């Protein structure tokens, strides 16, 4: 196994770990706010490490660029999505929960 392959393997494993963390968090955390926190780990770091792992071995620069574009697209759209989802959730929260400081 070359050094390059080792690095790729390590990066892929790291990615897998963050996906695992995200999935477990999504399942186990108590409410949507904390779950979205878990999810962003998978979105940003998990995919990021997988992309890095693949990029290490990529035969051409074009391919690396393409992987990068995909990652950036997912990053942007997932951060926007998180924002929109939480915005929607919070816009409605006060109606059901107006009293009682927590």
């Amino acid at each position, binding site marked *: 196994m070359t050094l390059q392959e080792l690095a790729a393997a390590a990066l892929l494993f790291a990615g897998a770990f963050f996906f695992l963390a995200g999935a477990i968090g999504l399942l186990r955390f108590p409410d949507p706010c904390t779950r979205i926190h878990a999810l962003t780990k998978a979105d940003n770091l998990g995919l990021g490490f997988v992309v890095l792992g693949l990029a290490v071995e990529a035969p051409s620069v074009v391919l690396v660029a393409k992987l990068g574009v995909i990652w950036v*697209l997912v990053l*942007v*759209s997932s*951060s*926007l999505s998180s*924002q*929109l989802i939480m*915005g929607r959730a919070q816009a409605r929260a006060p109606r059901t929960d107006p009293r009682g400081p927590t």
Partner: protein
Amino acid sequence: MSLVDWTLDGVLAALLPLIAWGVVTAASLDKAIMLFIVLGFVSALAWARLDAIDVALVEAAVGSGLTGALLLSALPAIQPRLRRPSSLARRAGVGALLAGITIWLGVTTLRLPARSGGLAELVCENIEQSGALHPITAVLLDFRGYDTLIEVAVLLVASLAVRAVQRPRLRPGRRGEPTSEPLASFLNLLVPASIVIAGFLVWEGSHAPGGAFQAGSILAGCGVSLQLTGERPALRMTLRVRAALVLGLAVFVALAGAPLLRGHDLLDYPRPWAGPLVFALELALTVSIAVILVTFFPGAPDRPEPPARAADSP
């Protein structure tokens, strides 16, 4: 195929019916829609795994992306009415019938004589003369272009029928919700990115998986986003929109009819020009498919209705 490959396929094959079961038995409509979107994701993966990349592309774009958004946008209109599960006996009967058919189909398929892959060889032999180097595109736009001609008409008719029954009630952009800062900057990124990617997919279509339908769906996704966020007003049936709507079919009919005038068969492209003609056709189809898909979404009324009529819809 190693053990990992087999397991991977096995997991995919197990996930599909599992999720489908979830869709069918979900207690509420919104849950069913969410699971349906997930089903679209997983089936796109399955198609990719089966090397049917073209189908995977369409499934990713239309099956999960746009269909999910379309179902969600229909949700407010139908939610209150879904309160009547049919009787257990009836469901069991239908289930048994469908299971029987499925099992029978499975057995029949497995017992099919193992023959060569249909017309694949013939397609490969003739691909040089066709207007595309990718077999799927060659089949869709040349060998069986006549099918696609009618399918494009199907899409246009569907759009006309949807437009006939749409109510202006759900017109987004009228709600006065200002576009948030991040959303606006996201849309600023999405529009150019979609156009570039759509153009790339059309180009790919001439020699690799891709083409008008996939590219059109990307553009439609962008258009739907703009329309749903109120960033752009809903499509009005201006001359320009109508021109975009029929462009694909018009070009197709022209390409079909022109050879007839010269005494050839319909869609018989003059061979040296077949490549450029097919590519031009793809571009026209991309535009039309994108606009047609956008018209399926609520918020694309015929024309601005006078307020009196808009108000009386229940």
